[in-house]
């Protein structure tokens, strides 16, 4: 599950993520990070589901971190998309690829909403939700 963690100025200097990783032993992977003295925003991938996932999200909330589940992030307008491929190799997480008939396919799970493909698309077929 991909989750966006939003740190307020009060908690931005605390090692919240490190503590939770140490406590749970889970391999939480950082996909994207923007942190400065005022605030922090991380997109992480948490390798668990169901009740266990909710417990972990609760740990972040208790530590003062806002939690947003990242579900649908990108929309491809297939009326505009020509399946040219201009978005594929620039994608840092390999979330875009060709299907067997050379139609562009998108893997929601891998996407970190970095916008690279939005800019790379020559016909403006990709929007970030």
């Amino acid at each position, binding site marked *: 599950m991909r989750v966006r963690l939003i740190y307020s100025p009060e908690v931005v200097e605390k090692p919240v993520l490190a503590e939770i990783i140490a406590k749970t032993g889970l391999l939480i992977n950082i996909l994207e990070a923007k942190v400065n003295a005022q605030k922090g925003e991380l997109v992480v991938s948490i390798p668990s589901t169901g009740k266990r996932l909710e417990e972990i999200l609760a740990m972040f909330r208790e530590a003062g971190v806002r939690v947003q589940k990242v579900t649908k992030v990108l929309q491809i307008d297939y009326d505009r998309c*020509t*399946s*040219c*491929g*201009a*978005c*594929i*190799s*620039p994608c*840092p997480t*390999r979330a875009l*690829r*060709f299907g067997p*008939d*050379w*139609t562009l396919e998108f893997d929601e799970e891998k996407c970190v909403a970095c916008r*690279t493909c939005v*800019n*790379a698309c*020559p*016909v*403006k077929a990709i929007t970030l939700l």
Partner: protein
Amino acid sequence: MKRSQREIRSVEEINEKIKRGDAVVLTAEEMIKLADSSGIKVAAKEVDVVTTGTFGAMCSSGVFLNFGHSDPPIKMTKCWLNDVPLYKGLAAVDGYLGATALSETQGFEYGGGHVIEDLVSGKEIELRAESYGTDCYPRRHIETVITIDDLNQAILVNPRNCYQKYDAATNSTDRVIYTYMGTLLPNYGNVSFSGAGQLNPLCKDWNYETIGIGTRIFLGGGVGYIIGEGTQHSPQSGFGTLMVRGDLKKMNSRYLRGASFYRYGVTLYVGVGIPIPIINENVASTAALRDDQITVNIRDYGVPSRPDLRPIVSRVTYADLRSGKVTIGDKEVPSSSLSSYKMAREISEVLKKWILEGRFFLTKPVEPLPRRREFKPLRIRRKELRVRDVMRREVITAKPDDEVKEVARKLVAKGIDHLPVIDRDGRLIGIVTSWDLAKAIANDRNVLSEIMTRKVITAREDESIDVVARRMAQHNISGLPVIDEAKQVSGIITTDDISRRLVGRRLTI
């Protein structure tokens, strides 16, 4: 490959078969399969026509438009469609709209290619025109709305389409670059390529035995014609091109798409399909060429030189590129296309259908295309400023173990802002600016090596001023040490030096 061979069938015979409904037409992909399974001889005997297709960004495209005369009439000297300027060095109400012309209000977001797509889709377009007024054309201004149906003619005339193949692009530098080959990630982060390879029309008649002036083709979803070699036609090196024309009114916006390349500009994606009559075995064998037989260079677009001078970092085939990864040195690099293979395939299928339904007949060219053409670069005959003409040669340098205060005094005394730091052998190892020194003094740092920037952006003496000015703007810095191959500092160039030398000259960055 050799030309000339015993003719198996003529174009006239093929057209007779199309009329009768018994022509054998395969797409280029189907031809490849047949040749692989049954051999070229059998394929040449059985197949009458191979259809091809390509769908990619083709910047040298545009449309001649005739607006008709208003009353009172106007001799348009300037004209815009949706704020995109047309070329108006033609008669009163004729104009040429080029695919790469930028909107004067929307910049890279909208341009000539988009207007062409919108015209073909039947959308309303704002027409604005100006004139100085004459006795015969008294009107000086027009602001109105048109659609393609209001125009007398809308003729797509593309000076260069349908490249036989195209060098692929990568980027060796440490920052993302945005090019006409798309987004190129740093440190060879990706490779981008263009062209339909084994479906590409000019790859399928490699020796120009059937394609020539007058060849009827699929163009933008309608019917078009080849009217000659394209600009920069260079068939001897596998970079043939075509000039084509067709009636825009009969085209389809599925196959003509306005496009924007981020931080580069606008263009038009054009769909082209050409039927290849299998007149002999030689044509059959080129029509059966596969992606793995068509080689492509990968060039480093991080080097800001003209295309043929960008270093070749790898040689691959279209099959390698289309597999999604290629190797550069010992690195595996993701690759993807800018042109749509899916659409290219669709075009080859549509053209096949047209021929099978007896709606499209083949033509014999009235003249072949040249098989050799010189492709020259533009030589600059006037002297242009290079770094060596502008840089200052008396450079004050420092050593890494110099004291901050001492160095600050030196800067103030000499009135300079940039101080290259060199090692014992005179090699550049860092740089400090007056700002770095101010910060160091405020923070009680004592030695230069603690505060200097170690990753120095530099210039070379023979580089053009435009390239160096752009580099400074990109890194948001105001001075570069000039170094030679041995990293010895020979001078320094700053934005001040450039602006002082260039007063009165236009500098484009």
